[in-house]
């Protein structure tokens, strides 16, 4: 069986649809089309610059977010550490902080060295030295009074 015998000839389809080719729209359709186009164009007018949006690829957006988070973290980190130190030693002064830093760095360097214990004793003995100095001073004053 020939396959082309089962096919409707293209010329026949062409002829049948030729009657529709002469179809013309009503006259008022042009006005309606133009009205809707003008309306749609008015709606499509570009907004002011701060209300515009831009589209960027998701990988770029993710990378930008990661960079922003890392930058913020690295900027805030020194302040957070300083805050923690101040919380741990609320009455510490700047000089004491420096001494503590010095102590800790020394401790790291010579953890099992006897030098550390000597330094600590010296620092801890400072108030007693001051007291003894005061005592001596008052004793001297008493001597002056007696004379």
């Amino acid at each position, binding site marked *: 069986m020939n396959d082309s015998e089962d096919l409707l000839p293209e010329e026949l389809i062409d002829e049948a649809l030729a009657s529709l080719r002469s179809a013309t729209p009503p006259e008022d359709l042009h006005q309606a*089309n*133009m009205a809707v186009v003008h309306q749609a164009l008015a709606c499509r007018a570009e907004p002011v610059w701060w209300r515009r949006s831009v589209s960027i690829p998701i990988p770029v957006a993710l990378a930008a977010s990661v960079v922003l988070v890392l930058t913020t973290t690295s900027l805030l980190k020194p302040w957070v550490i300083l805050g923690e130190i101040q919380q741990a030693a609320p009455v510490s002064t700047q000089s004491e902080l420096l001494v503590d830093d010095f102590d800790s760095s020394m401790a790291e360097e010579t953890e099992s060295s006897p030098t550390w214990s000597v330094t600590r004793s010296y620092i801890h003995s400072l108030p007693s030295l001051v007291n003894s100095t005061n005592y001596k001073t008052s004793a001297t004053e008493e001597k002056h009074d007696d004379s």
Partner: protein
Amino acid sequence: MESANEYLRSLRKGDADAYEALVRRFETPLYRYFFASHGDPQLACEQSVDCFSDLVESLPKLTGGPDQLRPFVFAVARNVLRRQWRRQAREFAPLSSVPETIDNSPPPDATIVAAEESAELIEAIRSLDQTTCDVFLLRFLEQFSVAEVAEAVGEPIGTIKSRLHRGRQRLHKILQSKSDLQ
């Protein structure tokens, strides 16, 4: 070619004059396409208006060159048509509406027979599945090339050729069964 590119740029920018030219160029083919799809002139007018409204929204997204404008316009028209079918399952206009476009003067017998055959064939084309019907209308009514039909429908050229072949087989069967009944 340069002026065609310039025209396309104007459309993308939303130039009112360019859109007026677009309406002048496409309002008759679009109306004809919608009317041929269902035979309802009122619905064809409504769909034509909807189509131009959609075109203003979607034309800035057209990435191709001027050659792609016509398939793009008809791709938007197909979307309008499909949306309409989904929205309301309207009954097709009776066949008597088809000869409205034909000369109304009293024709000779041969012309009457030809008009009846044309009406039967148009009805048969409309009875095909929606995409195949669109393929036939674009190919034979709007005289699109197969490549343009493929672009408008969004299917490969091979599929369009296959649709045309199977559609012609189906139309042959439909018309043969009708003539057998008579």
